[in-house]
């Protein structure tokens, strides 16, 4: 055992862990942060989009030196069938602002920068060190962690679990359940390298402008899932993810889906001639509000992906992670400043703070969405995209058929496929879940 003790141990150096460690260290607490990867970011996988607002709350002037790729000026939503896509595009020059709202980033680079800020604030950051177990006293209060290093037990007043979606530490200690296949998605992505000017020409960008394409439809083969294409400076991040439970039930493979997505006629020209330099896979918490575990306990709090804090509807995660990490730290600071012990009762203010933030309010709004999407995935990801595509093509193809006839054909195809009651049911269910 190491004789040295810390005020707080933060397990994990992703967005949530770094936000927590930075906030704690800035307030003068003695912080130890453990990261199993070779360096912060080496094991962290995300698309990735950075939301400036939540980072500004932690590092106000991050734009000065953070490794940012492109600020987003355009968003495209694609509803795809096997040969087409129907798109909704939004682009605005307003996004070319002095302090842009969203950026693409490369996590391996960004997290290193973020960690440097944590170190500068005074936290001790240990990489290549895996926390293997939570140490608990006779009353079950968490008093520190065991690590995979020799003499690797360290005591602390409280532990912040920012260990990511798998949450092995919390699971092992029995403070949370393992995520189930219906609450996590498996996403795979590739980094396609292309010359800067090629990317800018293909996506109609200039300078540091960036663009996001989010795609759903038959690319997920009836499973709940989405594809994405993000532009970085000199590479395109392209991936697809689906619910793990659906991979199990359909027997589809993640690389099979990715391959189909890449060969789709709408996608292939965008990445033509690129060099793939990186392939990554990651689990994403998709259970929403109802899958959120207990957030605090005797001597511990859980933040970020480990707490299932991910808004699948809006593809937001890192901002929820940063905010939950910051709020957990602020809660701990409050308890500490009162000189009070890190008991569950005292740490419960973390949940109160989180409940009042956009994090829980957004997740609560969509609490019924995961179940709806998971249960009726074939309707939403297979049938409707095909029907929409068919209707669009029918509408656009000029072949002498009277327009009224065309409208009737389209309507009929919807009714034939889903029936009036089915269509109404889907609409009502969707409206209810969205509310």
């Amino acid at each position: 055992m190491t004789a040295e003790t810390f005020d707080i141990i933060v397990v994990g150096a992703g967005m949530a862990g770094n936000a927590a460690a930075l906030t704690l260290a800035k307030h003068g607490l003695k912080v130890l942060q453990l990261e199993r990867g070779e360096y912060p970011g080496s094991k962290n996988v995300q698309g990735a989009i950075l939301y400036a607002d939540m980072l500004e709350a932690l590092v106000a002037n991050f734009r000065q030196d953070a490794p940012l790729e492109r600020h987003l000026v355009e968003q495209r939503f694609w509803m795809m069938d096997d040969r087409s896509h129907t798109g909704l595009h939004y682009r605005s020059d307003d996004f070319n602002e002095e302090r842009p709202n969203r950026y693409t980033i490369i996590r391996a680079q960004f997290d290193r920068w973020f960690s440097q800020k944590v170190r500068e604030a005074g936290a001790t950051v240990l990489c290549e060190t895996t926390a293997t177990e939570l140490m608990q006293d006779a009353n079950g209060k968490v008093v520190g962690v065991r690590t995979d290093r020799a003499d690797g037990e360290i005591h602390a007043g409280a532990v912040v679990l920012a260990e990511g979606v798998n949450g092995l530490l919390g699971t092992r200690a029995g403070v949370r359940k393992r995520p189930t296949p219906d609450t996590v998605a498996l996403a795979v992505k590739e980094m396609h390298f292309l010359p800067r000017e090629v990317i800018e020409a293909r996506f109609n960008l200039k300078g540091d402008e960036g663009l996001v394409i989010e795609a759903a439809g038959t690319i997920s083969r009836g499973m709940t899932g989405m594809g994405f294409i993000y532009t970085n400076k000199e590479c395109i991040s392209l991936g697809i993810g689906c619910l793990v439970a659906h991979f199990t039930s359909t027997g589809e493979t993640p690389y099979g889906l990715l391959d189909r997505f890449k060969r789709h006629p709408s996608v292939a020209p965008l990445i033509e001639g690129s060099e793939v330099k990186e392939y990554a896979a990651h689990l994403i918490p998709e259970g929403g509000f109802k899958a959120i575990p207990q957030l605090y306990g005797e001597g511990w709090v859980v933040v970020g992906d480990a707490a299932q804090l991910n808004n699948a509807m809006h593809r937001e995660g890192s901002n929820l992670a940063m905010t939950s990490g910051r709020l957990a730290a602020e809660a701990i600071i409050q308890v500490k400043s009162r000189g009070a012990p890190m008991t569950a009762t005292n740490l419960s203010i973390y949940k109160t703070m989180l409940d009042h933030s956009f994090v829980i309010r957004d997740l609560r709004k969509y609490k019924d969405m995961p179940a709806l999407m998971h249960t009726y995935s074939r309707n939403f990801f297979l049938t409707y995209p095909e029907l929409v595509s068919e209707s669009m093509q029918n509408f656009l193809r000029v072949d002498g058929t009277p327009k009224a006839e065309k409208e009737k054909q389209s309507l009929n195809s919807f009714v034939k496929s889903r029936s009036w009651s089915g269509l109404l049911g889907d609409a009502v269910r969707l409206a209810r879940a969205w509310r």
Partner: protein
Amino acid sequence: MHLLVCIKQVPDSGQIRVHPVTNTIMRQGVPTIINPYDLFALEAALELRDQFGGEVTVLTMGPPSAEDSLRKALTFGADRAVLLTDRFFAGADTLATTYALATAIRRISSEFGAPDIVFTGKQTIDGDTAQVGPGIAKRLGLFQLTYVGKISALDLHARTIDVERRSEGGVQLLRTRLPCLVTMLEATNQIRRGAMADALRAARATILKWSAQQAGVDDISQCGLRGSPTVVKRVFAPAARNEKATMIEPDEQPAEALINAIFRCRPALEIELAALARGY
């Protein structure tokens, strides 16, 4: 006992790419590692320290980012780290490198005691010269034991060291007097995982950063590019070979199929062999 290990931060050669147009090595974005051979040297030093007591100093020359490698060495258990970093050192070949390192080792000697053994890896994976170890030995007047596979004995009273040195076609058992310089072969040991106390110490340790002047360099013209007689004339990627592998379907006569395939590609060979056969 004072053990000094020279390490080098090198690009991870497994991930190096050559720019297709300019033919230069693209270092940007290539992860850096401690030269793998140096890790065998470091572990050998740590083992001797654990056995005989004393301390291990690691020394490197490189850009400020080489601090990462030194911190890693501290995590493994080294006691002290020194970084020689100065723009005057840039562009050094092995002659200029050994000048800078030897000068720094003299400064380390006066500050922390003369090293009993100086360790290096047998060579680096980026330069592959294997000259720096022997160069340091020459400049400091140390006995040198290169390509050491094993340190079999160390006698601190008699001040002798016994080693197994790999040479062409065999192993030499050598004994020499301390102080000396040892260059370690690969696969002689495995670098340890530092204990928690080492990791904590390394995370907070201050790494000594010396400029040329602070290291005690009195003749700047022997440093860096100016002190390097080696001139890199050209860097190029070997041209991709045109030959393609051919799959021979396994049939009843695989040897015949193979020979025929070879003769198809090299008709001259068939004629040559036929002539030879006639000769016998």
